């Protein structure tokens, strides 16, 4: 459903496709039996768990439902008598429902939702810090420093992600070839993306040369897969060294100028690419169908394509890192994806932690991150031979070394709204890029307060 796609990082399209592969692989390997394995040496705390918990997540993702069910079975087997009720929430507005429930002291004991919650939920005390549990968990050693930093906020750890998001600039090799471009492509600069889009435009109106997320209709993708990679490519950052938010800078203006070029000057992103009821779904399906030339999107999207049509995906869909504007080393944007949280008001946090551990075993990370391609947060899972088995998995895991992430911050969601507004009005041709940049700065200053922002004059 479109609304759920706007909230979660994993699309229903991807989930639907992944399920097919999941069933085949699960049956073939039988590895699910080991999913959620509980370590033999359990702590004294774990020995005492009893009672009941509820586990919540957005309905409609059968892969996640399977993970939850398997983890529940593992915990029940290791702790006879405990009750685990899995209660998927209605899709569409799950996050809103969850936030309302948490704010009123309700909600499930344990839940799985966006990684943005690390700062958003911890700031008002809606979730439980995991430090005490992690200190006793021997598998915590498998989480590298950059992952720990990504789930850390105010000197505590608040969530366990089962996946780290990473992105690629996908392109159709066959369309590139028809447009006179190389089938093996790695743009050296952002201008080369625009040049390729102009060449693809010559192929006719039936082809969408370039999918560049913009406006509110692009959902979180507008910020994460549209604006933020451009901001970094132009040498920008969200905050300065003192932690203040940069609300006015050359990179912000340049990123919005890039939108203006793509949407208005070159018209390489057709209007309907962003006005469709579900732009992400439309563009993703369009890449597989050979109707979209380029799209910057998540690694899990490639998994969906592969599950649906492995031959076309492996032969015709190329993947490249995002270039710097000045030709510097290319990179990938990423960060903590959907994660598990313990409700601060839970009456049975110990049992919730047992569930969380089971859902984040090495086997679970290998299995589910290969079915729904993400970087496994655990080092032992990322080192598994599974992730060296094909060029895409190998490239995906290797992006860890060039991954650009944002620190958890409760203002990030407001930033998404401000970016949607700024990119939307530029893409629609309502205001020029410089005016949109001014609005971006004004709105961020209103939200954060002048004392928390900094302006870097752009000559």
């Amino acid at each position: 459903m479109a609304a759920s796609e706007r909230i979660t990082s994993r699309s229903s399209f991807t989930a639907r496709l992944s399920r097919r592969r999941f069933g085949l692989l699960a049956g073939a390997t039988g590895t699910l039996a080991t999913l959620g394995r509980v370590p033999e040496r359990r702590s004294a705390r774990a020995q005492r768990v009893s009672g009941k918990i509820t586990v919540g997540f957005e309905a409609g993702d059968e892969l996640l439902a399977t993970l939850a069910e398997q983890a529940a079975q593992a915990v029940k087997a290791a702790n006879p008598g405990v009750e685990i009720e899995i209660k998927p929430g209605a899709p569409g507005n799950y996050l809103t429902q969850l936030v309302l429930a948490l704010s009123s002291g309700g909600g499930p004991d344990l839940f799985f939702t966006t990684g943005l919650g690390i700062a958003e939920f911890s700031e008002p005390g809606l979730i439980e810090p995991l430090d005490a549990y992690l200190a006793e968990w021997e598998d915590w050693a498998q989480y590298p420093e950059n992952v720990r930093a990504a789930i850390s906020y105010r000197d505590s750890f608040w969530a366990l992600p089962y996946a780290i998001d990473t992105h690629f600039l996908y392109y159709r090799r066959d369309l590139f070839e028809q447009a006179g471009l190389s089938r093996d492509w790695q743009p050296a600069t952002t201008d080369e993306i625009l040049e390729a889009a102009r060449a693809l435009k010559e192929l006719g109106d039936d082809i969408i040369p370039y999918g560049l997320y913009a406006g509110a209709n692009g959902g979180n993708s507008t910020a994460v897969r549209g604006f933020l990679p451009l901001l970094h490519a132009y040498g920008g950052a969200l905050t300065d060294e003192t932690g203040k938010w940069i609300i006015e800078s050359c990179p912000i203006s340049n990123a919005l100028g890039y939108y203006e070029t793509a949407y208005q000057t070159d018209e390489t992103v057709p209007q309907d690419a962003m006005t469709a009821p579900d732009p992400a779904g439309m563009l993703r399906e369009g890449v597989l169908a050979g109707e979209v030339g380029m799209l910057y999107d998540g690694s899990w999207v490639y998994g969906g394509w592969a599950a649906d049509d492995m031959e076309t995906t492996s032969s015709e869909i190329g993947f490249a890192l995002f270039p710097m504007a000045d030709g510097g080393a290319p990179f990938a944007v990423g960060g903590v994806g959907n994660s598990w949280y313990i409700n601060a008001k839970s009456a049975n946090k110990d049992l919730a932690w047992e569930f969380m551990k089971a859902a984040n075993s090495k086997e679970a990370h290998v299995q589910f991150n290969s079915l729904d391609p993400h970087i496994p947060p655990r080092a032992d899972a990322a080192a598994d031979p599974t992730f060296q088995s094909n060029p895409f998995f190998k490239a995906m895991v290797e992006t860890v070394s060039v991954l650009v992430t944002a620190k958890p911050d409760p203002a990030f969601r407001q930033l998404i709204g401000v970016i949607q507004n700024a990119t939307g009005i530029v893409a629609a041709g309502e205001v020029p890029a410089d005016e949109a940049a001014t609005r971006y700065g004004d709105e961020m200053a209103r939200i954060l307060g002048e004392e928390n922002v900094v302006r870097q004059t752009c000559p």
Partner: protein
Amino acid sequence: MTTLTRDRDDEVRRPIARRRTTPAQFPSWDRWRNLQSAAMTAPALIVMGLFFLAPAAWAIYASFTDRSLGPTYSWIGLDNYRFIWDNPDFPRIVRNTVVFVIGSALIGQTFLGLSLALLINHATKRGYLLSHLAYAAVLVTWIAPPAFAGSVWGEVYEFRHGLLNTALGQIGLGRIDMLGDHPMLAVIIADVWRGTAFAMVILLGALRTIPGQVYEAARVDGAGEWRLFTDHTLPMLRQHVAIVMIMTTLVTIGSFMLILILTNGSVGYQTETLALFAWHRAFGQYEIGYGSAVSVIMLGLNLVFAAVYLKLARVEEQ
């Protein structure tokens, strides 16, 4: 026959017979009547208080705070209203709301609802079986949840593979980008499709209460069909039309789910209405105080619309 008398100089005259026959002289009976009245109205008052007055009061209070997620927040006075006033997109959002309400509630739902009611009433009187089918078909759209309606119309409007452009292609016509070039028209059509049934049901019911003798007498006086409609049908429906206009306006101002699904406000705010703006701020960005301020403005707009309609209806009545 009732006779009138005066009990005291300053007391109005009242029917003696009535005084004699009612137990109003007995204080216990009065109290019982009062208690009875209170008991009968209490459920309605409780429901109104719980589901309308309390949330409205809470929204007004929240609009003066910087409430976000969680229990802690601060009183910031009129800041949220000032931020809204300073927002360069706000005039456009208000304009969008007015266009949406006029297009969907007034022109679309009320006018189309009246037209459908007249047609179905006409067909029913003549015993056409299709009238029942038409009635049922319109009613089904009303049952459809807004999210479903948004998805259906999204499939219709989708530029490259949607039903509309596929159909246009079949007959040799070019494609129309409804969601890109005419987004407001697109959401108005979808909302009218979903909401017209309400107006139709109310007005059809009202039409059936008009006595047939009124028309027979007018026909004897030589009135044609148009005169019957303008001189008799329309005046007798005015109260009902006013009610329909009030109800559809209130519902349409608060409607956001269909637009959220269909355009999400469009890329450059072309279909961002007040309700959707409030939702985006309150539950998209978790600026609940700001979103509440927008909803309070919506409440004010609703009251203005309702007052205007009631005034018009009263003038017509007089």
